[in-house]
């Protein structure tokens, strides 16, 4: 294997082996603590433009299969791991992680002290980093200078969203699913509940959406800073109160911003499959799958019509809100799991119930 470096904006250099694409990349270096589900994480559009570090040291063990992708297009910029498995073993495996990344032009580095890297990120917050071209020797100072000058792109949602709507038909409730970089897991859960789904691009307007006569609107997850897509915030403002809404991750942030709350960037995000979230209504704690770099400011909720329904047990940040007047609720974490725990899948059932309740109301009005 050829040598490859990971250089951080603080000047730290890691020397390892290149895999995947030979061409290097630049991105924000983040880490996930999930021990399984690398295929899902790598294909999760929310990671668009980022270089993802796996804290679990052995990655690629069960190979790559055709079933577990969360998107067709890979938005991720790079992968950092301690040890790449060359000979995967699983009945569904159709190839190695390295081959897959090569095919998708995603560079990877392996053989480095990923725990050291994780501790640096924990201390300093997420950093920009560069994965060098395979076999390339570079001037570190020069790279650091470039990294410091690099702006994190603001158009990531556009990169991973779709350009035109498509249907995923069913016989149940009609749901318009706005794709900000949607994980397939969300679609899968709605399909499972026999929803009649129309997936639409991130910049679809409120009028267009309402024109599809949905029983409910689902706002998906997606990458980046929610304030970078003001058009989506406007759209949400236009549908709140008119149709039941369920938001996940970026969708949750958009609902909150549309309701008057504010967001902020977390030091190094929540990424992994072991995040406890307390449901304030039931008092029960569920383990959740999380992947977000931004969060909603709890104090800012007070001035809105929202109420906090879920908090992260560990740092107390907002993990879910509900509209006090309209059938709107959302969570910061991923109830669809994939990858990660499926403790909160019932939220999709609640969304269906919410739509049912609303249509009953309407029919009784009629």
């Amino acid at each position: 294997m050829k040598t490859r470096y990971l250089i951080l904006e603080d000047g730290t250099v890691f020397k390892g082996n290149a895999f995947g694409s030979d061409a290097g990349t630049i991105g924000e270096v983040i880490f996930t603590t999930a021990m399984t589900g690398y295929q899902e994480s790598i294909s999760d559009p929310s990671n668009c433009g980022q270089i993802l570090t796996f804290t679990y040291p052995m990655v690629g063990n069960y190979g790559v299969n055709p079933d577990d992708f969360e998107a067709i297009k890979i938005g991720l910029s790079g992968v950092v791991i301690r040890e790449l498995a060359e000979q995967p073993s699983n009945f569904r495996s159709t190839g190695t992680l390295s081959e897959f990344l090569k095919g998708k032009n995603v560079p990877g580095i392996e053989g480095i002290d990923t725990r050291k890297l994780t501790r640096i990120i924990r201390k300093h917050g997420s950093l920009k980093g560069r994965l060098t071209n395979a076999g390339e020797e570079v001037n570190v100072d020069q790279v650091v200078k470039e990294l410091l000058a690099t702006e994190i792109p603001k158009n990531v949602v556009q990169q991973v969203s779709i350009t035109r709507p498509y249907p995923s038909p069913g016989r149940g409730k009609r749901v318009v699913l706005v794709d900000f970089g949607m994980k397939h897991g969300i679609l899968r859960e709605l399909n499972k509940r026999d929803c009649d789904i129309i997936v639409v691009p991130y910049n679809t307007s409120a009028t267009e959406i309402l024109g599809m006569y949905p029983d409910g609107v689902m706002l998906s997850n997606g990458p980046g800073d929610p304030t970078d897509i003001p058009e989506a915030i406007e759209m949400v403002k236009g549908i709140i109160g008119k149709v039941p809404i369920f938001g996940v991750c970026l969708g949750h942030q958009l609902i909150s911003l549309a309701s008057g709350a504010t967001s902020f960037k977390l030091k190094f995000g929540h990424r992994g499959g072991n995040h406890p979230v307390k449901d304030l209504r039931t008092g029960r704690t569920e383990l959740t799958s999380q992947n977000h770099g931004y969060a909603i400011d709890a104090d800012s909720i007070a001035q809105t019509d929202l109420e906090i329904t879920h908090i992260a047990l560990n740092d107390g940040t907002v993990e879910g809100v509900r509209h006090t007047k309209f059938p709107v609720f959302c969570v910061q974490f991923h109830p669809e799991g994939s990858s990660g725990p499926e403790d909160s899948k019932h939220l999709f059932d609640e969304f269906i119930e919410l739509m049912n309740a609303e249509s009953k109301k309407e029919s009784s009005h009629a």
Partner: protein
Amino acid sequence: MPKRKDIKTILVIGSGPIVIGQAAEFDYAGTQACISLREEGYSVILVNSNPATIMTDTEIADKVYIEPLTLPFVSKIIRKERPDAILPTLGGQTGLNMAIELDESGILDELGIEILGTKLEAIHKAEDRDLFRTLMNELNEPVPDSDIIHNLEEAKAFVERIGYPVIVRPAFTMGGTGGGICYNDNDLAEIVTSGLKYSPVTQCLLEKSIAGYKEIEYEVMRDSADNAIVVCNMENFDAVGIHTGDSIVVAPTQTLSDRENQMLRNVSLKIIRALKIEGGCNVQLALDPHSFNYYIIEVNPRVSRSSALASKATGYPIAKLAAKIAVGLTLDEMMNPVTQKTYACFEPALDYIVAKIPRWPFDKFESAKRNLGTQMKATGEVMSLGRTFEEAILKSVRSLETGHFHIEMKNSESITDAWMEKRIRRAGDERLFFIGEALRRGVSVETIHEWSQIDQFFLNKLQNIVKYEQVIQANPFDQEVLYKAKRMGFADKTIAKYWHVTELEVYKFKKENGIVPVYKMVDTCAGEFESETPYFYGTYEEENESIRTEKESVIVLGSGPIRIGQGVEFDYATVHSVWAIKEAGYEAIIINNNPETVSTDFSISDKLYFEPLTLEDVMHIVDLEQPKGVVVQFGGQTAINLAAGLEERGVKILGTTLEDIDRAENRNKFEAALHEIDIPQPLGKTAVSVEEATTIANEIGYPVLVRPSYVLGGRAMQIVYTEDEIKHYMENAVEASPEKPVLIDRYLTGTEIEVDAICDGENVLIPGIMEHIERAGVHSGDSIAVYPPQKLSQYQMDTLVDYTTRLAKGLKIVGLMNIQYVISKDEVYVIEVNPRSSRTVPFLSKITSIPMANIATKAILGQSIIEQGYTPGLAPTSPGVYVKVPVFSFAKLRRVDITLGPEMKSTGEVMGKDITLEKALYKGLVAAGMEIKDHGTVLMTISDKDKAEGIEIAKRFYAIGFRIMATQGTAEAIKNVGIPVDIVDKIGSKGTTLLDVIQKGEAQFIINTLTKGMQPERDGFRIRRESVENGIPCLTSLDTAEAMLRVIESMTFSTETMKHQEVKA
């Protein structure tokens, strides 16, 4: 939910003696639980029969009862103490079964005592095969096709329906006792019959075999508010078919995709919720390697060996939190004790891989069946952490202390391909090493997978190791190759062998080139949160997280895996030494590799290094920590054996110096020392060859005691009676060499005495003297020890004190020492001196309230015995009589001869204490699991040399109403003294034979003594095995038989006819 305020006193039930399937993990769990409950302000009453544990220290609970774990005794304690509640789920299967018995007896209802934690109803549902199957059906969760059977006929009917192979699982037993896989009718008859006997409810589950599936475990916890989490999942390296306690296990799972993982996680949580578990629970699942099909194998509704492993693997203290859940606290309101910043309601994320390898007792039981199946055979285990599978598994291999430093075996050239294939197909203890050999011979991963059904992922990893061996061999002193080899976990010793240099040269080259391990923290969260846990493992990476503090430190070496001869007693001493070091103001650092024990709980020491106990691994830690010195005398022979190498590399051994350790252990030097201080020992010499051995034996006269030097637990120790025997022994049992001579001593019969003493260099404190029930010749660990001695004269006691004092001073002991004496014809001889802690240290410490390991540690650190407030000499005798009774695990080990001899065979011990010897013995024997009947039949087969003594015993049994049965020769001898006796035929005869009597349960006791020496004596062997299989006490030492008889005599009255009055005319 806040903790319960309506209860104040809680009775915790321990797990009793260490047996295969239930070992030190329950000392760890129980200790954690007691501390945890007291933290919350509850008053804890503990009952456990095992004195060798930290758990039974008076500091751990408010009140400690070391009493038999039987219904009458525990009921007595309950009536006396009137606890508000009992907590049974932390004492293993023993604790659970005890709770069920208490409940069924009605005492809990009568006194209004609540059972905390998981309710009995849930325990029944999880443990009763039928109820469990019904529950799984209700939940729509698959279990392998199975049937509950109560007799062999029902078993046959099941097999007719399902076909072979089938698995037999007896109900309500632990460690799979009596179970196994049947491939044919013979297997079925044998295993079902024994299984039914072991099941207290005479019930077995017959199950369709799903051998070859992946075996996956989930350690789950749930609280009363229905929060449920998975602490850790684990994957067995060995496929379904081998008991998980006998499997190599890794954590987390390696070959499961997230979908498979979440599927099984969901199932595990669903089950724990359906059972309404409040505390910890273990769910074992079988997953088809070719589909998403899975089966639930088993659920253990309590903390277990797996939960101890999961706790050490993740840092998450399951037992501690399970205890708090039992008193009403919920996971979301408790802090994660590791990070102290996050909550306990989360699932640990690992950024390393953990590999556990079991430690089997086959090195001691050469004749035992080494095959592994559904019945656990391992006595202990080792665990290692690494950043790759290769690193973790190789670290574990060298932690085993079985002479392996790599996945290779001795004398590999002599192994045929056919034998190799056989040993890979049918799993045994050495399969990992056979696989290494097969890969080296070019057998493909696919073929080995086909033979073993081990997942190719693991085999490929082993292949990586084997492939890299050649790279290392081809590149001596190549830095890059060496670095990669170290990252893959290769031992210095292995590399040295490939490079044809010494281990020290490799070590030096590594240091010169900066190739040294760093230490990473085990923090439960993969670095996501800051934590302060002082729990580290070594690996070859960039960043070191273990920072040396300003405080002067002392390193204590632990005792490694639990094995016969080196049990939990050594962990006990290690923990006390650590505490003493802390008290003395130093930073206490421990190195150990056993996941079951209290010493590897990171809250015990200031710093825990979970690392192999080899020279290389210890040296790297010493290099980093720069301690004042290393303490080796508490970690058994494991630690002692490292002393020479450490000193050679410039490390200060604290306490008794290496030179003096050697003087006690090296036979010739020891003899010289004894001569100097004028203390007699049995005649004896060392031999390094067969010829030398026979010459020496002829000189001193038979019988002689032969054994290798530097061993613990009497391994390979024998009494030989003839020249042929000694030749056979020298040729087959040991590998004698000038470095490893064989000791040959005159075998003296007489009373054996054991003394533990502490010396500070000037004064000697002798906490107590113990007398053995069995005469010399039975290993001290297998003898019943009595405190205080019952048969010694004042003169003998004085002599013992005098000798002990002179030996301690003469050998310049600083710290602990253990001496064994034999008193033969009124003369006291020294048999053996061990310059270290011993098996009897916890027993004696508890009896005398003298914290021996603590005092010894402080003496080592320079505080004299007097300064510590103790008076030198023999401590005043504690009131009462105390016995230590050994406990064996013979039922788990097929084909092992149970005869007591110089080689140790017991796995654990219990204590009996009372005001008379008989009462104490009664408690001890009952606690050890013997059923003492006050009437019935004694079956005797006594060898000629023991006939005279045997007849005396027969007389006494007869006097208290027992019926005597005996084989021809023995019967005639008994008849000659006028005692009625029934003759039973020898095995193979036409009439009612010995075996029929045993199998039909017609005898309540069996007394069987060996004819002579170690010649295979097939009838005797079968009698002894049959008695084990049928759960009938079989006594192979007349001393034990006499002791048992005294107990029965004290329980009953003899009846005698009146003498005829002679009327004088």
